[in-house]
């Protein structure tokens, strides 16, 4: 017989997330004044908001109901029939109990639910026997093994053996359906989680059901690929090993993979992620719940793109320009000494006006604080910049979460799904609720869009200054305003770190908006004019990213001493005097302000790659070397007072 189960059965992280989602929804419904209904689950009375499904009411009552196809963020289909329980209710004037799929039935007053009767046990056993009939049971070579809902439910609820002696359905194993996802149709139990995700959440329907009956299978359009920026989520919600990650394939058993909370820094959205690492190496990225940002999803850029932390292209040795003008490897002490020597030389001989620094919009607030302490604090430098684009500096009017309630969404000059993935997912939600979503390539198309005061206009931070003026006047006329969506993970972190020289900078300043001038242009002009002799470029690549690339090229071709911190070689490091190899997001602690103003703080997940150092430690050491030792042991020691991280909990 099956092992002990019931309310005390330890839940998997995925199950706990589902239960927590139910708790969140219940609370939200209560707050919204949704009427409650009372029912009895396994002898225990519970009240739940009207509309709650019986399986969810059972969770609230602490009962255990196994399931595969149910997912709190997808519409219920009642396909797998694993969540069968005895439901007693009144229908057509008669009160009777019958076995029902609890994921489809809304809880109602007076219902009596029983999840552990012999009939229910027999039904659950029977369904699992059927689910397993054609399943290949190739768990030893399945990446899902060890964290597989089907394995877990079989241990707890399944039959002890199989009576299936027939030939199983056979398909080509391990069929790659995209760059990231491998499909194994033999393992698929046709729960339709992935296909529902594709149509309901990702909104691109890139994965669908084909054929029917016992030959039903999931897949991309015939002959096509699963080219969605959200494909990786299907790997996580697949309750079996049918959809697995090509990147994680055979990288280790799930229990060898430690999971640490982090924030994705691939774009500005600040998705909450769980970084899986094995023996100090990042092996996979999973989504983590944050209802205000990513719910529980990730985009593929975040899920798979972060593998670049393991890239052999990573810089692991400081570089210094030698007498012949070539960048050559050196050690940290030599590199840092060279930086300090030049810094002191320029300060003494040319004054602080000849010093400049460009803060990081991809690193942490703390990195910037320590940069500020060195250049502004020690040397009174004021040529401190960070903004490489020409966008107005203002937090967006529309937050990520607000977009799902919008009725009219206009995105200009972006591929929202790739550039602002979480804004995109909320726009899909809005669209499912009837919103009109319009995407135009450039401001030229704006004239054809009928804006109203309720329109939500989403704009990237990469347009030309003139474009913002066009948008501003169109949106002012319509009375709707517009939202500039930053690209980088910490676009306003340097401001919060004080790089603008503002006393006690705060997030609310950013809601109001800062003056729009881009000081980076001043720095670069100073460099090309020769008035700036020393510049510290922290973690950015102005030569590539400045709109005025001619100015950027000229600036970094000057004789000034250029220090660049970076994880990889790029167009700016190529012109540097000293290049300092720094740790990745997963290797460093610190805080980030995401696109809509949520401050999130994370710890390092793995040690820095050998030879690299976290940026804040580099800055701490430079401060110490110029005679400014700081009592800093972790980045949080320098987080400005008044900045309270909230989002990552």
């Amino acid at each position, binding site marked *: 017989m099956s092992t002990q189960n019931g309310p005390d059965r330890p839940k998997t992280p995925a199950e706990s997330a589902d239960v927590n989602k139910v708790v969140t929804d219940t609370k939200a419904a209560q707050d919204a004044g949704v009427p409650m209904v009372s029912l009895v689950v396994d002898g225990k009375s519970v009240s739940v908001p009207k509309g709650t499904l019986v399986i969810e009411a059972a969770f609230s009552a602490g009962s255990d109901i196994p399931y595969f196809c149910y997912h709190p963020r997808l519409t*219920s*289909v*009642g*396909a*797998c*029939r*694993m969540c*069968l329980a005895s439901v007693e*209710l009144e*229908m057509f004037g008669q009160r009777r109990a*019958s*076995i029902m*799929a609890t994921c*489809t*039935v*809304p809880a*109602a007053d007076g219902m009596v639910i029983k999840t552990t009767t012999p009939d229910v046990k*027999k*039904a659950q056993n*029977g*369904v699992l*026997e*059927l*689910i397993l*009939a*054609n399943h290949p049971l190739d768990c030893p070579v399945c990446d899902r093994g060890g964290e597989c809902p089907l394995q877990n439910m079989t241990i707890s609820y399944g039959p002890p053996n199989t*009576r*299936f002696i*027939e*030939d199983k*359905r056979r398909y080509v194993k391990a069929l790659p359906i995209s760059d990231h996802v491998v499909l194994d149709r033999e393992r698929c*139990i*046709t729960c339709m989680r992935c296909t529902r995700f594709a149509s309901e959440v990702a909104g691109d329907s890139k994965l669908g*059901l084909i*054929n*029917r*009956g*016992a*030959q*039903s299978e999931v897949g991309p359009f015939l002959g096509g690929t699963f080219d969605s920026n959200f494909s990786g989520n299907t790997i996580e919600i697949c309750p079996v090993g049918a959809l697995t990650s090509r990147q994680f394939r055979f990288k280790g058993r799930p229990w060898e993979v430690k999971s640490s909370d982090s924030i994705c820094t691939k774009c500005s959205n600040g998705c909450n992620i769980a970084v899986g690492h094995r023996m100090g190496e990042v092996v996979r990225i999973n989504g983590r719940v944050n209802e205000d940002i990513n719910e529980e999803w990730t985009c593929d850029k975040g899920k798979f793109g972060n593998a670049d932390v393991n890239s052999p292209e990573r810089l692991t040795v400081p570089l210094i320009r030698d007498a012949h003008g070539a960048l050559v490897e050196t050690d940290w002490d030599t590199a840092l000494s060279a930086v300090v020597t030049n810094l002191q030389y320029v300060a003494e001989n040319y004054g602080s006006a000849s010093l400049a620094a460009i803060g990081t919009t991809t690193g942490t607030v703390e990195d910037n604080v320590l940069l500020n302490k060195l250049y502004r604090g020690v040397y009174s430098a004021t040529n401190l910049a960070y903004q490489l684009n020409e966008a107005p500096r203002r937090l967006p009017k529309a937050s990520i979460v607000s977009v799902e309630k919008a009725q009219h969404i206009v995105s200009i000059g972006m591929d929202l799904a790739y550039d602002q993935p979480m804004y995109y997912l909320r726009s899909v939600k809005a669209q499912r609720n009837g919103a009109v979503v319009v995407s135009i390539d450039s401001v030229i198309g704006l004239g054809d869009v009928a804006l109203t005061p309720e329109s939500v206009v989403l704009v990237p931070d990469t347009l030309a200054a003139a474009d913002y003026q066009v948008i501003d006047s169109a949106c002012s006329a319509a009375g709707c305003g517009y939202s500039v969506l930053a690209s980088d993970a910490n676009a306003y972190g340097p401001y919060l770190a004080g790089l603008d020289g503002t006393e006690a900078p705060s997030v609310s300043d950013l809601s109001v908006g800062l003056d729009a001038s881009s000081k980076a242009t001043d720095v670069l002009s100073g460099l090309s004019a020769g008035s700036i002799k020393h510049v510290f470029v922290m973690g950015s690549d102005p030569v590539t990213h400045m709109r005025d690339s001619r100015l950027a090229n000229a600036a970094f071709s000057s004789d000034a001493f250029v220090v660049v911190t970076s994880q990889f070689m790029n167009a700016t490091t190529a012109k540097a005097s000293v290049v300092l190899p720094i740790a990745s997001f997963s290797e460093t602690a610190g805080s980030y302000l995401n696109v809509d103003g949520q401050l999130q703080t994370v710890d390092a997940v793995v040690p820095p790659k050998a030879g690299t150092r976290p940026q804040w430690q580099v800055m701490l050491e430079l401060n110490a070397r110029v005679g400014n030792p700081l009592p800093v042991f972790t980045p949080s020691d320098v987080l400005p007072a008044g900045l309270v991280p909230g989002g990552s909990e």
Partner: protein
Amino acid sequence: MPVEQTQLLYRHRNVPGINRLETYVAHGGYEQFRKAVAMDPEAIIEEVKVSGLRGRGGAGFPTHIKWNAFPKNRDVEHYFIINADEGEPGTAKDRDLMNALPHLLVEGCLCSMVAVRAAKCYIYIRGEYIEPWKSVQKAINDAYAAGFLGKNVLGSGLDFDIYTHLGAGAYECGEESALMSSLMGERGMPRLKPPAAPLPMISGVWKRPSVVNNVETAATIPAILELGGAKYAEIGVGSPRSRGTKLFSISGHVNKPGIYEIVLGTPFSEVLDIAGGVRDGHQLKTYIPGGSSMGFAPPTPLDYPFDYEGIPQNTQTLGLGSGGLMIFDETTDVFKVTHRLVDFYHHESCGKCTPCREGLDWLSKIYARIASGGGREQDIDLIWDICDSIRGKSFCALGEGAIWPVMTSLRLFRHEYLSYIHHGRNTYSDAGQLGA
């Protein structure tokens, strides 16, 4: 004295040219629609209620209950949908009705549309029924030309449009919610039903009030309006809950297979006689009373009322179903027939739910193994257990219908299974005689 077989739907079945508008009108056609369009919708529903009409498609649900659940206004579009996706093995009545009496269907639809306050009707016809489809579409076109369809019909101020919608080969689309999926351009998979979802009469196709009725149900409405509900309810010689007449497709080993309109409650032996009796020189072995999903009935008793109540009570099958009566004589290999049906349901399972998808796949493999001599005695219990895992647990009625012939054949003909298991063939039938 045999029961007098009142003919309502088939009264003019054999009139030459009855499929043409002029002939149909000459025989009183569209008179009931003229009457209906002037009636209060509630009065029509009341007549249908009094008539005791139950759905002729298979479930036998009282028609008036469905109709009464519609909103009593025309604030949003209501849809009247005809299930002409006849596919239940043994059932051929709707095809005949559409081929021979297309205007009766159109008139029935029109009367029903008045009752449920619908201006739009879709007739969902299975993909194989090209000829019936053309027949019905022609009738619709002629009805438009004659002013029975279109805008402000007969000066009523009401608009009526009827469209045909051709399926493409999926038995599951005969299930009303799957039919609605298919009508909306989706895979023909069943949708959630009460208590998990609102009634279709509140939120059906395109989330608007909708009802799905069988071809024969709609075609019965003119007769009810002509006779009056009370008079219609007087027809029937069996259960007080089985009123009127019903089309039966009688097939298999009978002398005169065909489609017959039979007064509900007529003794089964008389029904058999109407079809000429079991073919000469043979005896009744078993029969399926109402389409393959109903299961196999024992050869006795013969004298019981053949209607919604009488069949399940006397045969332990699911009942009257869609009226597909299949007669099998002693030459029939019941194991083989059941195997065929298992493969049919396996082929037609939509794949949405585990029990039906996997259970039928497994059953199909077990039957194939037994048929090819690899049977084991424990397979009988296994088949029963698999049926038990499907019964009451599948998403829709297809799974339930699939196991009923399996379970009834096991109950009545277990020895034939054992014969295959022990001897590799059926020693209880002479399969070589099939088709003789």
